[in-house]
């Protein structure tokens, strides 16, 4: 065997051994907090890498979430690019594998904010993060039996939004504009989506107080403008003049409804929407919409990253926080004609400078599970 090959094999063997040692040492470090248990300085991370794992950049909603995340990393004196985007494109498998790759690349020195894409995926994601000794905050998707406090400090928090109450409030505004009587149609989101279910439930709650309002029909328009327009046109054929008001599950559907009505020359139909997108807020100001609901995705995106980051560097210790700081509802702001201009100036024209250490200020109470 030539010396070159012998040297090469020797060198590779040594470097592989070093690698194994290094890996073992790394695992040891990760295990240290577990060994010493509660009370020790578990948050041993310095300068963790920060990532946001989410669906895509094709919607105003996620863009706003990520803008919030970027505002947070800039508040740390880092460039926007310090926030790594892990885009899952609606694939649960990609969501999990991207997070695992990110953990491996940074040896677990990570603070991650994440929407797990679907509820069952939250558990493997959180388990992978805990195994690597990293920190994670989640929003929207998780199963009801998965709780941050079951994972020590590593699963920092979960935030979601309860849409039932705000959707009920928009329904009440709609019914009052209709004079408390007549038929109403609901154009919903994708039927199995939780927000779609809650927004319809909100409408049904409000109906109990308005006996002269009849819910003519409620069908899914899949959050989509064109589907909303086509469905509204079909509703017009079926119910005609009996429709006196329209309750939409989101702003995009409402845009389609307005256009379907415009095609028929109907200009003054009372319509309410949801999401508080800039275009919808403008329509509220112009009187085309009665109300929409803003969930402040910018704040949600920033604060989720901030919670994971500050737990990681030890600013606070999640396991010592009360449960309402581990699982909580995000903010919802009702936007109506009365306050739309003020709202636009405050939240849309210039983004407010948030205090990213005020973790729970704008939040909305502990998450309640239905039995």
């Amino acid at each position, binding site marked *: 065997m030539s010396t070159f090959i012998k040297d090469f094999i020797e060198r590779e063997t040594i470097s592989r051994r070093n690698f194994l040692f290094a890996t073992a040492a790394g695992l040891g470090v990760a295990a240290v907090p577990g060994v010493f248990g509660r009370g020790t300085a578990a948050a041993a991370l310095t300068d963790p890498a920060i990532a946001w794992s989410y669906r895509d950049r094709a919607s*105003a909603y996620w863009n706003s979430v990520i803008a919030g995340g970027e505002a947070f990393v800039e508040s740390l004196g880092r460039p926007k690019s310090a926030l790594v985007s892990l885009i899952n494109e609606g694939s649960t498998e990609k969501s999990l594998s991207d997070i695992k790759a990110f953990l491996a690349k940074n040896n677990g020195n990570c603070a991650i904010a994440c929407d797990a894409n679907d509820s069952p995926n939250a558990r493997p994601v959180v388990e992978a993060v805990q195994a690597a000794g990293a920190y994670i905050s989640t929003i929207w998707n998780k199963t009801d039996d998965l709780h941050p406090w079951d994972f020590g400090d590593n699963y920092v928090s979960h935030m979601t939004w309860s849409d039932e109450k705000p959707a009920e409030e928009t329904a009440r505004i709609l019914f009052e504009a209709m004079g408390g009587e007549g038929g109403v149609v609901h154009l919903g989101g994708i039927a199995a989506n939780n927000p779609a279910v809650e927004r319809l439930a909100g409408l049904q709650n409000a109906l109990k107080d308005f006996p002269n309002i009849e819910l003519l029909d409620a*069908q899914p328009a899949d959050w*989509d403008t*064109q589907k909303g327009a086509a469905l509204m*046109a079909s509703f017009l*054929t079926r119910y005609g003049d009996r429709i006196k008001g329209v309750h939409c599950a989101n702003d995009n559907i409402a*845009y389609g409804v307005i256009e379907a009505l415009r*095609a028929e020359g109907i200009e003054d139909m009372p319509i309410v929407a949801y999401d508080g997108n800039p275009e919808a807020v403008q329509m509220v100001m112009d009187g085309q919409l009665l109300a929409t609901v803003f969930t402040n995705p910018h704040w949600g995106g920033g604060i989720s990253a901030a919670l994971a980051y500050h737990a990681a560097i030890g600013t606070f210790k999640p396991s010592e926080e009360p449960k309402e700081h581990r699982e909580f509802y995000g903010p919802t702001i009702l936007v109506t004609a009365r306050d739309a201009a003020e709202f636009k100036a405050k939240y849309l024209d210039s983004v407010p400078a948030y205090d990213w250490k005020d973790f729970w200020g704008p939040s909305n109470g502990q998450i309640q599970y239905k039995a």
Partner: protein
Amino acid sequence: MTRRLSRETLIKWAPLLVLIALVIFFTALNPTFFSLRNFARIAIAAAPALMVAIGVTFIIVMGSIDLSMEGTVSLTAVSFAFIFAQLGGSLAGFGWIAIPLVLVLGGLIGLLNGLVHVKLKIPSFMASLAMGFVGTGAAILLTGGDIVKVGDAAFRGLLTVRWLGFPLMVYVAAFFLFVGWFIQTHTTLGRNFYAVGGGEDLAHASGLNVTRVRVTGFALAGVFYAIAAILVVARIGQAESVTGANFMFVSITSVVVGGVALWGGIGGVWNALVGVLIVNVIDNGMVVIGLPDFLQDGVLGLLVILAVVLSTDRKMVSFVK
């Protein structure tokens, strides 16, 4: 002999018979379905989809497939909205220039699509799907995920101004349907589509430049996708990176339901028209008769299978892939 002729005739007209049967069926369950107002509503929803379907019909007649429509429609819609705003945002001013520019853009995207397919020898299925993704990506890049509004009253006249009960956009779609029919029956290109689809080897051996026909076909389809994009913007007053979403399913389903054979050489723009109408009549009719929403997807699927079974001559086909 006469028996065989009648069977062929029947199959040729089967999609139209399916359409008429559906109209009678929905009207029987809810008479308001059969009204001018409702037909106008169906036509508004069908007009953009018809343009996409005509575009892809040319490709399917050639025996290829084009899956780039979603990306192309999104990108051309967003480009149209931006260029239109840039040129003053009004049809009365220079805004109209955006229309030919976007048609050219659609043609260029299709041309690129065809060149990738033919020159790199990538199956049309894969090449066009990839180009579609590129188009959607470019649309996201342009908009940053935001919605671009087009509010010009003159342009929106395509939706709001009616003539004999139908909005102008329906007449625009009808005009381009005739353009598609003219290309199909009265031009060499149109006949070459059928030559390539009916037997590519034979066409090649007869001296036909198959490569050129294919690339031209994809470019032509791109122009029709751009027309669809403009009609969508006219219909909903906005463009965004998801404007083209759903058009792949709707257009290909329509074309096949209308009796265009996926193996090439059979069918044409009239089949595309009937197919688009069948799909849109089903969509509208299911809501109008009050079918529960959880049944609608299933029923749509079953009706599509039924329509294809009735409208294709499967005795002529030795294998299905």
